[in-house]
């Protein structure tokens, strides 16, 4: 089955040199105390200052054209940067969605005005995006969403509610999928559009949803007669579903789907090595073998995406396998070393374990549940 064979990417000496550059930067900043390593840092590690630091180095939107503030680097360079940031557990949540998918979406489908307005700010680490998809009654069945935009002079008036919106309380904008024409049961995916909603606009209210740890990264976003000017519609009116689906390949195949618990695995390996525990290290080796095969796949998808290939199936596979792997790291490590997991622990292992266990169930839910992904994969494989 050809769809399952992904290209093998060999890194060039220049790319390895870039990895060194990123790693040295991270080492230094960690030593200075700019950040501490956390598991799942791309969801929970908010730091506008850190995002600005990355922006200064040209490390946000680094593949984008120079005229919009990008550095015109390759997708593989971006991959290297991203995986180094995640492996170090650096706080990258603030700019995460803008860099990963909102920017690329605007580059693909945005108007010149939109690109000029948003992209340079994103690359500076000064403009953050959230993604407004799920609603209280539309989870896995996203196409049943009810938030609607009505046409008025000069724009649209939006009413509805989004939920599980990560980082809305830090973000400046939310790309909102909503109905711009009434639902037609026979053509469920028609009549939706993507609107950029200014989260400081009148009629927007954001309410925190406490995560089970008590942390705050999710939100409910209420939209009450929010006016969105015509020039804040992305792409084509009515084409929002298709446009949104194109983003999913970026969303599902990246290193954040395999590395969320990596800091825990690495700390375990360090301690086991210190204790000369070969049996424990053998368990780490098995996990590492899984990680390595996933990483080969994930880099392969990045390469294909850059070539404009359809990787929906492969991306779903990376997310399905990758997120299960992330969970299994915590389950395996807890049996290898004595520990007392706690989010307030001083000992790094205890804290990373707590973060990994408590965030764990979310890995296979966010961005498309395992069950939804498997449906996509099975259909893709059966029709191939």
């Amino acid at each position, binding site marked *: 089955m050809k769809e399952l064979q992904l290209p093998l990417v060999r890194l060039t000496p220049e790319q390895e040199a870039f990895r060194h550059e990123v790693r040295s930067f991270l080492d230094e900043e960690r030593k200075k105390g700019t950040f501490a390593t956390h598991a799942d840092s791309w969801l929970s590690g908010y730091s506008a200052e850190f995002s600005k630091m990355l922006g200064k180095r040209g490390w946000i939107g680094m593949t984008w054209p120079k005229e919009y503030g990008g550095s015109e680097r390759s997708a593989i360079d971006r991959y290297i940067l991203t995986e180094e940031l995640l492996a170090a557990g650096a706080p990258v949540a603030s700019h995460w969605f803008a860099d990963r998918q909102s920017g690329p979406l605007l580059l693909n489908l945005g108007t010149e005005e939109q690109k000029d307005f948003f992209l340079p700010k994103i690359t500076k680490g000064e403009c953050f995006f959230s993604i407004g998809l799920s609603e209280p009654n539309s989870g896995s069945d996203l196409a049943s969403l009810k938030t609607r935009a009505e046409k008025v002079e000069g724009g649209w008036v939006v009413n509805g509610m989004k939920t599980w919106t990560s980082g809305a309380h830090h973000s400046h904008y939310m790309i909102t999928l909503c109905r711009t024409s009434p639902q037609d049961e026979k053509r469920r995916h028609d009549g939706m559009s993507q609107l950029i909603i200014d989260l400081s606009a009148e009629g927007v209210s954001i309410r925190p949803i406490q995560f089970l740890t008590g942390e705050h990264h999710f939100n409910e976003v209420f939209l009450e007669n929010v006016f969105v000017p015509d020039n804040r519609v992305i792409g084509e009116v009515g084409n929002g579903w298709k446009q949104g689906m194109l983003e999913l390949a970026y969303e599902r195949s990246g290193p954040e789907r395999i590395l969320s618990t990596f800091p825990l695995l690495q700390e375990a390996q360090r301690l086991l090595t210190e204790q000369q525990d070969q049996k424990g290290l053998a368990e780490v*080796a098995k996990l590492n073998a899984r990680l390595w*095969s996933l990483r080969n796949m994930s880099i392969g998808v990045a390469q294909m995406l850059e070539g404009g290939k359809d990787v929906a199936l492969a991306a779903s*596979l990376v997310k399905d396998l990758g997120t299960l792997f992330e969970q299994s790291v915590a389950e395996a490590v807890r049996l290898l070393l004595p520990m007392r997991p706690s989010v307030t622990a001083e000992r790094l292992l205890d804290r990373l374990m707590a973060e990994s266990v408590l965030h764990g169930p979310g890995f296979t839910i966010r961005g498309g549940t395992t069950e939804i992904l498997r449906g996509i994969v099975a259909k893709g*494989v059966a029709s191939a």
Partner: protein
Amino acid sequence: MSEMLEFIADSAKKIFRDQVTKELNESVESGAFPEELWQVLAESGMLSIGVPEALGGVGGDVEDALAVLHLAGKHAVPAPLLETLGAVWTLAEFGEEAEPLPMSFVIGDFLIEEGTPLKLEHVPWGRVASKVIVAGTINGKPGIGQFSTDGIQVVENQNLAGEPLDQLVINDPDIELLSEGEQAKQATARLLEIGAAGRSAMMAGAIEHVLNLCVFYAKERQQFGRPLTRFQAIQHHIAAIAGEAAAVLGALSGSNDALSRGTGSDEIAMAKIRISEAAGTVSSRAHQLHAAIGMTYEHELHLSTRRLWTWREEYGNETYWANVLAERYLTKEESLWESITKTKRGNVHAGSVV
């Protein structure tokens, strides 16, 4: 894919498709040797890929051979391909010419004394091998050598797939030593890695075939008035198998690349671990999906699943290679991330990574 590789893969595909039938597999399992297939493989140069032309080979490299083994696994080829290639490459390393005869190799600890019968256990395809390479420890020292199998007594045995895994009894053992000491140690390590990488490639092929069988069956078979593919529970099996197949290919391409560049010890180990794991998952899901029909000798599923179950034990299973990697972690001063990315940070001590 290089032009050479493409050509070899194409002709291997054609040979296997034409020659390797279910009937052939059944006749080999009941004791016959696939003479005709072997002849075709010999004539097409498949038995000496990776051996320089000067030594009677067809040239090409290990990567080419692994591509053929991948296909051999997919088609459940009942012949000692990997065993012969491993032996031929070892002989070529010591300047011996390639012969298109079935051969085999065993790795272990051997005590060879004149006048005392030597029992070689678990020799793959031992009954048909014209030569057997023995590698590992010979009389307490690293060594590698070969036996001709003339006059050797065979006690037949088989692996889970019904492939020969014989005991050879050599009454008056007269080994022809190829090398001793450090060189032999290295040649042995390489032979084990070739075995592991070869089995990995073959398992990857078998897994791909099992996926195809599952998709075919789930589309054909109807229950409750609709094809199995319409049931979510079945879709999950298919998706999980496809996921394993994709991860296996990711592992295989990484390890093949490393092997062909000569940098690949860790990668070969990781691939054998990952692919052996997948072999178990894929086989059990595939059988659950096929239900009773898959448990029959009549249905071809077992040609692949029995191979997967047995191959994961050969040339080091998950535990074996995990221990090898663990030992390396203990001796290397690097963090896990440095070892994954194969890039060490400057002067910063590895322990301070997190």
